[in-house]
């Protein structure tokens, strides 16, 4: 298994390289440049600006320079956030996004899996229907509606929790975490219910039951492990997406995470920041996928680490 991890990690380097190349050239084909936001720049000044950020060099040379920098852990300056380098921006914002995202996924996984199991075991009963309804409500109401409503009610009306911001107190965490968890609860409970029903029908679970194992033991020892597989497959990428920040939640609750940069960087054509967040995001996704595969291997002995 150690070998497997090492092999996968080494294997991710070319992936990241391809990712860097695709993103780099993609962004340059897109119209607009970092300086189109100011309409009064003379051609000379524009040329100065381009030179200052090496944008006047041939594209290939810019690319190699960038890769060279990355190999030395230098991700360059941000063009639009000139007070900070790309590494600094990610270094300051990521811990916050990670905190919100991890809690949200944890809450979502626990509640979602529990609801999914309840729905599957009490299939087509009122329990099942209410679980389905809860899930649907979580999905049907977008977070840009839930967030502001929660703010108004718990923050402004009841005054139980802070409206927005990111203070030291844990009270600042509750609303954003729950808001972010809600749609994930819905997804996870739906997936869990589906795969649990599926697994309860498989021969080995039937056999286990037929052999007289208790309902509880059957579920815990045999069914749960198998049923978690699709959920784990979902959790991997979903966690990667969630811990790198949600622009909507961060904007509504004024949370200084990195979610904002994914949209702003592209919109502002802040090339170094685009590259930085892409490579960062890519590494996290690759890491999450590796983790997913390892966990899947633990859950399902039929999956081998080739």
């Amino acid at each position, binding site marked *: 298994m150690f070998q497997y991890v090492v092999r996968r990690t080494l294997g991710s380097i070319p992936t990241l390289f391809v990712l860097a190349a695709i993103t780099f050239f993609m962004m340059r084909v897109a119209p607009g440049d970092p300086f189109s936001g100011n*309409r009064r720049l*003379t051609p000379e*000044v524009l040329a100065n600006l381009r030179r200052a950020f090496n944008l006047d060099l041939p594209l290939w040379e810019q690319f190699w320079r960038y890769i060279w920098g990355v190999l030395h852990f230098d991700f360059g300056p941000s063009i639009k956030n000139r*007070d900070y380098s790309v590494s600094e921006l990610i270094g300051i914002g990521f811990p916050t996004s990670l905190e919100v995202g991890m809690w949200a996924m944890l809450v979502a996984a626990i509640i979602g899996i529990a609801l999914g199991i309840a729905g599957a075991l009490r299939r087509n009963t009122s329990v099942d229907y209410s679980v389905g309804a809860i899930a649907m409500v979580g999905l049907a109401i977008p977070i840009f509606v839930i967030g502001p409503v929660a703010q108004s009610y718990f923050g402004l009306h009841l005054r139980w929790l802070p409206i*927005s911001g990111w203070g030291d107190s844990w009270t600042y965490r509750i609303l954003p975490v729950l808001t972010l968890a809600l749609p994930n609860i819905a997804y996870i409970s739906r997936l869990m219910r589906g795969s649990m029903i599926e697994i309860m029908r498989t021969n080995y679970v039937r056999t286990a039951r037929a052999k007289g194992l208790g309902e509880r033991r059957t579920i815990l020892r045999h069914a749960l492990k198998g049923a978690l597989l699709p959920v784990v497959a979902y959790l991997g990428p979903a966690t990667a997406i969630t811990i790198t920040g949600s622009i909507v939640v961060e904007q509504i609750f004024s949370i200084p995470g990195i979610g*904002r940069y994914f949209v702003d960087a592209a919109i502002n*054509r802040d090339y170094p920041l685009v590259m930085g967040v892409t490579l960062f995001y890519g590494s996290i996704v690759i890491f999450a996928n590796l983790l997913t595969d390892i966990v899947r291997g633990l859950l399902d002995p039929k999956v081998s680490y080739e």
Partner: protein
Amino acid sequence: MMLANYSARMTISGMILAAIVALAQPAAAESVLTRGMGSTIGTLDPQINFLAYEGFILDDIYEGLVSPDPAGEPVPGAAETWDISDDGLTYTFHLRDGLKWSNGDPLVAQDFVNGVIRTLDPATASDKGYIFTSTISVVGAAAFNGGESTDPASVGVSAPDDKTVVIQLEKPAPYALYILNSFYFPPLHKPSFEAFGGDFIKPENIVTNGAYHLIENVPQSHVTLVKSPTYWGADSVKIDKVIYQITEDDNTAVKLFKAGEQDITYDIPSDQIEALTAEFGDQVHVTSSTETNYLSFNITKPPFDDIRVRQALAMALDRDAIINKVVKGGYVLNCGYVIPVPNYPQPQQADCAMPKDERVAKAQELYAEAGFGPDNVLALSIESSNNDAYKKIAETAAVMWKQTLGVEAKVNAQDRDSWLAAFNDGNWQVFNDNLVGDFAGPETFLAYMDPRAEAGYGWQSPEYEAAYDKAMSTEDQAERYKLLAEAERALLDTYLVIPLSSSPSRALVNSRVSGWVDNPAGWHSTKYMSVQ
């Protein structure tokens, strides 16, 4: 790795900061003001930062030769007095006695010269150079900025002695005093810049000369300033600490205001103005800004090269309905290009005051004359930014054109940079356009539309140029305004643009704050305010 390294540095600088804060805090209850900020801070570098909201913070931590008073009018800042030569080309400023930087260094005239030189230096790659090369044309600025001259002495800003700054202009700019404030003309503390390079504006390194000093700048979260004891006017500065909270969501800001957690908001959502006015009365501030909105036609592309088409489209719009029934939110109907300015005899586009039926009939007639009708439908695309009010303006125009003329109009609402890139590409038909003036006067708007300024409209007008040139060499304001109005008239008559409105500047200001005065330039220095 870099990240780990960085966090260690952060902790140490955090401790130093904590110590500074502890020292800076007076024993008595300190008065704290919280102000909203609509976007995260791009840069606080005084010679680079270009966005108006960043200018609010700059205005607190730096001081230019002049400084905007509570109503935005220029009053003495670092300079106590000044003389202007009779030809309007030479400005001589005399600095106050005993001016100091926040670290105790004396502030001298050369620091202001260094500021301008750094703004213009091609290596700085500043967005603001145009201020000195075009808004006011400082001698030698364009050549230095463009790299043709590398000698700083060739720029017409000099310091004959420690207390005198002399600025020489190529042509008169009677509004120059509006430009020489901290946003465009901040001094540079060269020793710290030389020591830290671009990092000289980091809280642990920064040296300032304004009423406040920067102690904290957390991206996307907040910026904290404390009162600077070295400021010459420190005795009259009442607020000890200002926290600029970054609240990108306007609705969140309103909630913070209601909860008393934000004293001054950055904006007010259009749809809530009525309800908030009912609830908070005069704490709701809506006033005009220096932003003008208009639709532009690409006259280099058929059929918009035909004035009848442009005129028909202009006349088909019920501008009153667009602004007063649909957009609302404090936007003010404006049928001229320049924003409403006191004493400026603003020309209006002719059809704006026509009765509705007559206007529509004329529009249909011109549309038919230009060869369009049910058999030959005009299809066009309006390029717009995705700002709410703008999207609404574009959508309403599209619907009205469809209703009155049968034009098939689509709105292409994009992010700001793509929208402006579309303009620069020249591949647009109708542009949902805007311009934010550098100050509240007609000069800044008409300088931009000058055909020779090549803003990208590709239009020609000798009348405009003649009237504009004459105005620029006229010292007397009334006479100058009359000439500028002539230039604007030439612009409006070509129907290159359909002026629609001027944008509001909006804020909720808690009643515990005094010293807030509404003004179109949008200057609200914290040093003039106090809290109960």
